[in-house]
């Protein structure tokens, strides 16, 4: 579904794709090398779980460890190079209106929800369901899921190692822009979690805009 509000791309360019991802839904697209994907947090504090794959060889995929090692820390923001399992640049964060994003916390799943909140959550929708459903359209399966990026999610680590998903620091309309450094398949789950503050307890739509320079 295309929406037609004022140009939301964070980096100027020709719009080649402009779609709104409904609350709780998956999304995917191939972003060609040099194109920029702008993600818009339309209503604020909406976690956008994201995995990246080399479009020509999906065995090479996003690696949270290699991304964090190369930049020397855990938070993603402008300048962060999103690296593959082979250490190569998949995408680069070229602009960020939020300040920091998470790549430690992973995706919610029905199974982990049973541990985190109790077995009453076993039939709630979750990000891994979105990744599996959307990934299957590209020939990807469970083996292909790894630790992901959580745009707009706030996961601090305390001095004693305590970590957790706490209230977000995003706001309605804030954007993050990713430049593709190779042809990249972007797999997204617009997070449906309602048991913690990652979506402000109210999952909402987000907007995806791809521009070419």
């Amino acid at each position, binding site marked *: 579904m295309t929406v037609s509000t004022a140009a939301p791309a964070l980096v100027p360019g020709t719009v080649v794709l402009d779609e709104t991802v409904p609350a709780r839904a998956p999304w995917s697209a191939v972003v060609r090398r040099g194109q920029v994907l702008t993600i818009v947090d339309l209503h604020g504090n909406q976690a956008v779980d994201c995995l990246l794959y080399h479009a020509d060889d999906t065995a090479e995929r996003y*690696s949270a460890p290699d991304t964090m090692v190369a930049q020397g820390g855990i938070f993603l923001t402008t300048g962060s190079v999103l690296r593959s399992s082979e*250490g190569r640049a998949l995408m680069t964060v070229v602009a960020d209106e939020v300040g920091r994003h998470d790549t430690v916390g992973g995706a919610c799943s029905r*199974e*982990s929800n*049973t*541990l985190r909140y109790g077995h009453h959550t076993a039939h709630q929708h979750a990000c891994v369901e979105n990744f599996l459903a959307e990934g299957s359209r590209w020939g990807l399966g469970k083996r292909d899921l790894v*630790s992901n990026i959580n745009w707009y999610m706030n996961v601090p680590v305390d001095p004693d*190692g305590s*970590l957790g998903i706490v209230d977000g620091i995003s706001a309605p309309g804030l954007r993050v822009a990713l430049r593709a450094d190779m042809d990249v398949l972007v797999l997204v789950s617009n997070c449906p979690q309602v048991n913690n503050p990652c979506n402000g307890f109210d999952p909402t739509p987000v907007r995806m805009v791809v521009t070419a320079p």
Partner: protein
Amino acid sequence: MTGSTATTAGARAHARAQGGTVVACMPTVPATGLAEPPEGVDAADLVWAETVPGGGYAGRRLAAGTALRLTDLDGDACVSVLLFSADEPWERLNVADTVKVLWQAYVGEGHLLLSDQGRVLASVTAAAPGRSDTFCGTSTLLRNTERYGDGTAHGPSPAGRELFTLAAAKHGLTRRDLPPSISFFQGVRVDDDGAFGWLGSAGAGGVVQLLTEMPVVVLLVNVPHPLDPRPAYTCTPVQVRAWRGRPTAPGDPLWTRTPEGERAFGNTVDHRTARGLS
């Protein structure tokens, strides 16, 4: 002896004369023949005894309830670990869930290594305080080539991912099956800004012990930590010992240490029971 391998009989004799050679890093087979079993362990219960060199790897399929002890013999081991459900290896270690579900990034004694299916692959029954890492995974060919000039499995400074690829292949698994790993013996801390600080090793004699809670395939690579600041490829041998025991059970202190862990153990027992293993 020149020319002694010119015939099949000579070559056979030459090969057989090598048997019985002892080196520092090798398996003891059978493990029950180990001269010095761990204190309190009956040698008859040993299932794996091996010393893995720096730059080496190992893998093993282990029954539920197996104790797996790793000892940093000389103080510069760095062992990165992956765990898979032995029967359904697409169920595997999920480092993100392991830290998130238990609200703790610094893995130590009592932590549970969780699969993506809400189950406990192994519990951590001993670990040097602060000397583990759930963030950085292991090294890549690219990084080791940049750092040391080479990262191939056959070269002088093998990368962890290259070695994991070999270890995985021997269990029918490929690079697609290699998620982020957890590493032990070398510590990393995160400051308030999210930046990494390097703690390094606690020294020789450090022990990490896991207890498998399901039948697992465990893969180990012993390579320098990706953040190890030393310019030389530095990694020393790790001793591996494994023996039969039993999984964590209701009534054990670990079972109820956290509500999340208790539910994870419950899921794990249900899984074992349905498979006829409990």
